[in-house]
């Protein structure tokens, strides 16, 4: 029984942490804090709990707590938008492919497989590199455009991942007799998909969606470390990137954002797993 209690505690911690991070992301701008890039000249690269800086500062004099709060907004926002958008497009395509079968299915599945054959990060990197630069490389690219390209690139990465899951889940239902029964009642394909397939596919998509949020947070951080993530060095990944050079004498500069990043991703994965386990149990019942 201890095992079960442990699992319950882990579950509660996961939800609490995600709630906490999302709350940080949402209310961050209204907290009575200085801007994240305020430079504290009097406290360069000080450790946590020193001089009124709860999580310390980096060698530029940026407060890490402010950075983490600000970074939460960017990292979570980018991940949620990319997964939401990619999940929507991907599952729409996947479910449609599963319902239509035949040639439509072959074409959509092939496109998914082609995209999937390119490693996630390389694909995102290539897309960002191509679309977020001007032909004249000395021209600066506006920040909003870089953020937009970043989100869209990650969306494209997510589309086939969730699309394939949606197709597989939908396939399990399109062959069921109640779909045939609905067809014999003269229902339109659109209605059948909405009323019979989507509600059954949804739980699986939500479970994988959580896992995908984790993947995208990591992907965004990786892109930031490579220098093509959220511009102006504000996301968690960018904080890690900046702290890289100081890791010898100020390891907390890397470890603080890394801790937030890692715990958040572990929690999204754990919540995804919990939902999937529930789903399997539910599936076994029906």
């Amino acid at each position, binding site marked *: 029984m201890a095992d079960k209690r442990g699992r319950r505690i882990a579950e509660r911690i996961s939800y609490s942490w995600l709630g906490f991070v999302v709350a940080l992301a949402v209310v961050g701008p209204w907290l009575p804090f200085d801007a994240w890039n305020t430079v504290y000249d009097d406290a360069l690269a000080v450790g946590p709990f020193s001089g009124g800086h709860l999580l310390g500062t980096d060698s530029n004099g940026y407060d890490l707590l402010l950075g983490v709060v600000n970074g939460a907004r960017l990292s979570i926002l980018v991940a949620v938008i990319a997964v939401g958008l990619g999940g929507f497009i991907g599952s729409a395509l996947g479910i449609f492919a599963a319902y239509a*079968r*035949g*040639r439509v299915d072959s074409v959509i599945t092939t496109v998914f497989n082609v995209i999937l054959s390119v490693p996630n990060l390389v694909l995102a990197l290539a897309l960002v590199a191509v679309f977020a630069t001007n032909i004249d490389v000395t021209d600066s690219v506006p920040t909003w455009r870089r953020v937009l390209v970043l989100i869209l690139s990650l969306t494209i990465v997510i589309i086939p991942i969730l699309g394939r899951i949606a197709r597989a889940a939908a396939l399990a239902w399109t062959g*069921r*007799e*109640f779909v*045939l*029964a*609905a*067809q*014999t*009642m*003269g*229902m*339109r394909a659109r*209605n059948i998909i909405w*009323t*019979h397939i989507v*509600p*059954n596919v949804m739980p699986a998509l939500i479970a994988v969606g959580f896992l995908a949020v984790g993947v995208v947070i990591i992907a965004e951080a990786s892109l930031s470390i490579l220098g093509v993530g959220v511009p102006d060095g504000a996301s968690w990944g960018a904080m890690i990137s900046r702290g890289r050079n100081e890791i010898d004498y100020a390891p907390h500069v890397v470890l603080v954002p890394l801790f937030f990043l890692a715990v958040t991703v572990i929690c999204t994965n754990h919540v995804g797993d919990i939902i999937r386990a529930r789903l399997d149990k539910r599936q076994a*019942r*029906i």
Partner: protein
Amino acid sequence: MSVTTEPILRIRNLDVTFATARGPLHAVRDVSIDIPNGKAIGIVGESGSGKTVLSRAVMGLLPSGTTRRTGTVEFAGTDLSTASAEELRTHLGTGMAMIFQDPMTALNPVRRVGVQVAEGLRIRLGMDKEAARLRAADLLRLVRIPDPLETLRKFPYQLSGGMRQRVMIAMAIACSPKLLFADEPTTALDVTVQAQILQLLGELRRDLGMSMVLITHDLGVVAGHTDEVIVMYAGEVVERARTSVLFANMKMPYTKALLTSIPTVDMPTGRRLPVIEGRLPDPVNRPAGCAFAERCAFATDKCRTEHPPLVTEGDHSWRCWHPLGGN
């Protein structure tokens, strides 16, 4: 209720072929059937005889990519074989409806009974939510479900098999179809429940003036519940007669064999059940002669080489070179 002489469904030379990896699979061969208005017709045959494919072909539910369908299907005077998918769809639910073998899989497990029964009413008949709910309750009452309003709120898994099949029937008759296909409606049910469901179907058919096609592998099921019986074997009609005539005077050895393979309560114990030896012929490489010849006790060389035509005498037809009781 007026019973006109014009058949509700007229099938002529219907052929259905599936493309398979091994070559074309001829599932339904040159089937011509009339379903008279207001009557109940039984289609009997073992698994793989093409009876289900026939019903799916009529309703246009076969996968379009891998299926070739020729022949004509005329429903209530409209030729469905040339109709577009959209035109065909307008006849489904309101003109033709179908109930299925396993009411567990034919009902969506995650949606409440009420929503599923009301669906056809709302989408096909354009009823508003409240009207559809009341009508759904009426339909459940019609299929003799006790406490219909309570049942509307339940999920399929909260109902017994018989109740689920009743819900399925309520869904099928929701839009007052003229023709109801019942594809093995009692196979997944307890024997006692089977009789109740068959009786219910018969009563509904008479009360609502529907025609019904009862598809089954069980001659016992069609005996008391149909006006006419069509026996199918390997995709072909092999015998057809009024139910009383068929049971009194079977012409096809296959029909007879089907009947003798039904165990009865008063059979002596300890004896092996009579079975039809062998299997259906390979539907991809069919034998030249009679499809049943391999398994038939009366088969001659002629049976194995020449395909027997459908012989009609009065309103009794059979496809056999050596019919029981002589030609």
